[in-house]
């Protein structure tokens, strides 16, 4: 039986019977596999990219020197290692002195990402593969400006003298931490002893950096975590940089959704392909029954044939997927610096499993139905094929699609959302298409013969045509979504970090300085400075119970509870904060006093709405109930506060103010002029970090765009398969028309009329679908502002009408070029 199935498969393939189905499967598997391959590699690369913000795959920090045990373990596991020490010290150049954040680094630092340096202020910078040479310091722009030094000038740090070697423009692992207030001074680790700054009791942070292949790193991290002593910690991406993590999460959501979209589109293509295949084999099936094949024999024959097909197509699809993703990786090489990690094996399995599940899900029910094809059909044409109850037939297929979505999404909720969304869209599309056809049937039957005949054709089988419209609409939805909405979504994403995002923070502004400061900045091109009051306070009790480091197991919580938090007071919710629980301050809260708390802090300390918090500031304590929990927009680059109180509670406490603004381009000296005019202010320059963030975001967006291309291909395939679905019938109709004396032009005009209506309805539905999905994605999934795109409403119907061209391509003309009798004989 297997041999006969193989023979039948080859015969079908040779005769071109499998072209649509096989192509659909190959592209489906290829699409899914390449998305998986690519997503896998990009995800690895993105994670590595994101590791740049640590400067390593694992960053370990301690308040004392690391024991050799850790260094040896890194070497033993074949990982690369670097070290750094950071502390704050005075630096002196000529008459100028400045408090500098000194970082002494070993050769090889950073292990991930690169330092960038420039020969002087406002000169173009470039990647550096090295660390400062012996006897040399690299200073950041702020330090160069403040110390008024240039390359080659002398500078003293502790007891040692250095030469200024370069301007340090980018340091990948410099976080947006407020601990990094002071400007950077970087030296070589070997030069550190000469400064004499490392003394017992000095406040120094010791960093140990490790990098290497994924598994080795994972094992090392596990090993190291078990051996951390007091004052030692491991920074991972999860707790290092919330703003980068937000970008990564968003990119992964985009990738995941794209893969799911590819799955759904492939499913539609395979369903259409299978339907066509089984319909074309109805007669063959009946004939074989006549010449003595049993039902079970035929079922086995077709089942084997399909299994073999699935196997072959999966193989070809995986090969295609691998090839394509390699090409894309080449392309991407310019986008993501460094080599992409090699792809794993799991995408192959993912692709193959997807192909098999899709084919069986959609082919098995029609195959089972073939059993009911009456053999009598061979002598009595009026004995029709079994009714294809659409829903009943595709329940298995739908289940298969849901399973695949669940697998790709990795969570029930998202998979249900996507599946439910598509199911609802299909239902709505079908209803609108059917209704539109009926409406046209009632009111639109005028005009030329061809137009009339074309419409009659449409109305003769409104259900089948509604199905075809839905299929075309789905293909168009995908294409519109991917080409137009994608741009809008990505723009909205990019818009979250606009070029004029604040890049300077001002801390320690005194109340009486607010006005002069705003005026000073306005003269320097900065308008509308917004300041926030800041009161430092410790959290001392939750619900009357005193809290301290010993109450928390998490290292970060321990550290935070021991320190003072920066509190602010406001009566209005900041624009980029979103409430996740409770309600913002009402009149009653304002009168009685209340606190709003950030949700990570709430989770970390186990605080809930309704809890009462007690703070201690400048020897005075105050308490208030928590009335809301806020989610902060970590990539907004605006001052964010873990705790916000009602104004009356904090107004009487001594406060300083904090502000952020975007410095006008090309004014490297603004910061130092500001420091001169307001000596007590601390100016924090995050422009470098901001630039780095924008770079990472651009790369993420680029990668996401490339993945979209695959889903786009699947959309076009669906379109093609949908058009091909009714080709046999149309060929036959054309033959009948021509046999009745219609001219070629008339037949073509009739088909054009039919497809014009079909395409216009489908195009409108496509616009509707793309807009609805785009809106949902923007507002529900990615928390972005939806940009309304009017072009979609023109592009949808235009694309739908372009289907006429595709239809001609799909074979209408070929059918017409043959003698009508040939077509009649073949299809009857």
């Amino acid at each position, binding site marked *: 039986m297997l041999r*006969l199935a193989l023979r039948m498969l080859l015969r079908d393939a040779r005769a071109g019977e499998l072209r649509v189905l096989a192509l659909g499967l190959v592209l489906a598997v290829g699409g899914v596999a390449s998305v998986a391959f690519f997503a896998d590699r990009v995800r690895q690369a993105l994670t590595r990219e994101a590791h740049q913000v640590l400067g390593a795959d694992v960053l370990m920090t301690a308040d004392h020197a690391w024991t050799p045990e850790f260094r040896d373990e890194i070497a033993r596991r074949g990982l690369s290692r670097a070290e750094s020490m950071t502390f704050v010290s005075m630096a002196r150049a000529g008459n100028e002195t400045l408090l500098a954040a000194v970082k002494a680094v070993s050769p090889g630092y950073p292990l991930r990402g690169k330092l960038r340096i420039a020969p002087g202020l406002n000169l173009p910078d470039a990647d550096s593969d090295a660390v400062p040479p012996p006897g040399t310091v690299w200073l950041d722009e702020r330090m160069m400006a403040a110390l008024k030094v240039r390359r080659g000038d002398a500078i003293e740090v502790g007891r040692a003298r250095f030469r200024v070697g370069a301007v340090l423009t980018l340091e990948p692992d410099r976080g947006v931490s407020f601990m990094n207030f002071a400007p950077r001074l970087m030296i070589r680790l070997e030069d550190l002893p000469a400064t004499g700054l490392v003394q017992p009791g000095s406040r120094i942070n010791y960093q140990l950096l490790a990098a290497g292949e994924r598994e080795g790193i994972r094992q090392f991290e596990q090993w190291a975590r078990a051996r951390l002593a007091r004052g030692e910690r491991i920074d991972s991406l999860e707790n290092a940089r919330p703003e980068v993590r937000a970008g990564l999460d968003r990119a992964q959501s985009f990738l995941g959704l794209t893969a799911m979209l590819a799955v759904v589109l492939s499913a539609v293509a395979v369903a259409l392909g299978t339907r066509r295949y089984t319909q074309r084999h109805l007669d063959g099936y009946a004939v074989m029954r006549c010449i003595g094949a*049993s039902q079970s024999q035929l079922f086995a024959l077709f089942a084997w044939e399909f299994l073999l097909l699935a196997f072959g197509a999966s193989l070809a699809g995986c090969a295609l997927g691998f090839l394509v993703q390699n090409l894309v990786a080449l392309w991407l090489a310019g986008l993501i610096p460094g080599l992409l990690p090699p792809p794993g094996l799991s995408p192959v399995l993912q692709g193959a499993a997807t192909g098999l599940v899709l084919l069986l899900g959609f082919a098995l029910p029609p195959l089972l139905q073939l059993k009911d094809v009456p053999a*009598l059909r061979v002598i009595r044409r009026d004995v029709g094929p079994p009714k294809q109850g659409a829903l009943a037939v595709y329940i298995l297929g739908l289940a298969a699609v849901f399973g695949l979505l669940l697998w790709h999404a990795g969570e029930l909720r998202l998979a249900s959302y996507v599946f439910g969304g598509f199911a609802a869209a299909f239902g709505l599309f079908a209803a609108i298409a059917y209704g539109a056809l009926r409406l046209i049937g009632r009111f639109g039957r005028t005009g030329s013969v061809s137009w009339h005949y074309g419409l009659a054709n449409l109305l003769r089988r409104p259900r089948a045509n509604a199905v075809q419209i839905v299929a075309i609409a789905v293909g168009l939805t995908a294409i519109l979504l991917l080409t137009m909405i994608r741009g809008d979504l990505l723009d909205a994403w990019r818009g979250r970090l606009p070029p004029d995002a604040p890049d300077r923070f001002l801390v320690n502004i005194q109340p009486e300085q607010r006005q002069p400061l705003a005026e000073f900045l306005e003269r320097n091109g900065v308008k509308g400075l917004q300041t926030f009051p800041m009161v430092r306070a410790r959290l001392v009790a939750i619900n009357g119970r005193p809290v301290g480091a010993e109450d928390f197991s998490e290292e970060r919580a321990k550290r935070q509870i021991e320190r003072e938090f920066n509190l602010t007071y406001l009566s209005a919710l900041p624009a980029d904060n979103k409430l996740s629980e409770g309600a913002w301050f009402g009149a009653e809260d304002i009168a009685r006093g209340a606190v709003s708390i950030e949700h990570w802090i709430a989770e970390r300390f186990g605080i809930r709405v309704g809890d009462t918090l007690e703070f201690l500031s400048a020897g005075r304590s105050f308490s208030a109930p928590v009335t809301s929990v806020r989610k902060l927009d970590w990539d907004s680059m605006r001052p964010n506060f873990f705790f916000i109180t009602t104004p009356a509670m904090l107004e009487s406490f001594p406060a300083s103010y904090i502000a952020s603004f975007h410095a006008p381009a090309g004014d490297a000296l603004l910061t130092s002029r500001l420091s001169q005019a307001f000596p007590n202010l601390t100016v924090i320059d995050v422009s470098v970090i901001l630039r780095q963030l924008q770079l990472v975001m651009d790369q993420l967006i680029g990668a996401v765009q490339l993945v979209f291309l695959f889903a786009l291909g699947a959309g076009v395939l669906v379109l093609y398969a949908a058009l091909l679905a009714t080709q046999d019938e149309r060929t036959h109709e054309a033959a009948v028309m021509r046999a009745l004396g219609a001219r070629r032009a008339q037949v073509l005009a009739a088909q054009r009329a039919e497809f014009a209506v079909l395409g216009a309805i489908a195009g409108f539905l496509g616009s509707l679908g793309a807009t609805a999905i785009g809106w949902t994605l923007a507002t529900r999934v990615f928390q972005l502002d939806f940009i309304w795109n009017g072009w979609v409403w023109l592009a949808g119907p235009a694309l739908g009408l372009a289907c006429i061209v595709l239809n001609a391509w799909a074979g209408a003309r070929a059918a017409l070029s043959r003698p009508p009798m040939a077509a009649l004989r073949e299809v009857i």
Partner: protein
Amino acid sequence: MATGLSKVVQLNESTASGTPGANELVILQDISLEVMPGEAVAIVGASGSGKSTLLGLLAGLDTPSSGAVQLDGADLFGLDEDGRAALRARLLGFVFQSFQLLPALNALENVMLPLELAGEAGAADRGAKMLARVGLAERLRHYPKTLSGGEQQRVALARAFVTQPKLLLADEPTGNLDAATGASVIELMFEMNAEARTTLVLVTHDEAIASRCRRKIRLVAGHIDGEG
């Protein structure tokens, strides 16, 4: 009259009251019919008289609402569907009005198909020989759509005879052919029938073709109206 065992076909008062999926109710009323080995029987009648339904009953493709059909002594409707299929494989050859060649298979493969389905050896050789017999030795690899109507029906004849059936059922075999081609196909069919000494039941509305059969049964509105 020979004994029941030697009859190839025996219909006893069979009634068919409509068929599933049919648009109209086609009824055969109490049809009884016996066909002896080697006989050639023509069933004639106007369109809608029940000819095709009768043929469907004989082949076990349709089920009678009452009565019984025996093929080569076996009770056709005492068997299940697969049993009937096996019986067809063993006994029957078919020729259809619309040829019913599988479009994805070439001429040779179409002829080989029944042998392959039955798991018989030497399908290719036997198929090629049979195609040579119908004059298509040069066209083994041609697909149905590249063959003329007459050629397609010759392939169908080869497919019908390749299993050496006891009974050949032919349903308007010239219905889709022009007169000259139809005549030559009929000629070939009777020749092969004689050579293989196959029993033939032929449904036609063409009196000329019918008259080449020894028996002629006329159906009118589901009744046997006479035999000549």
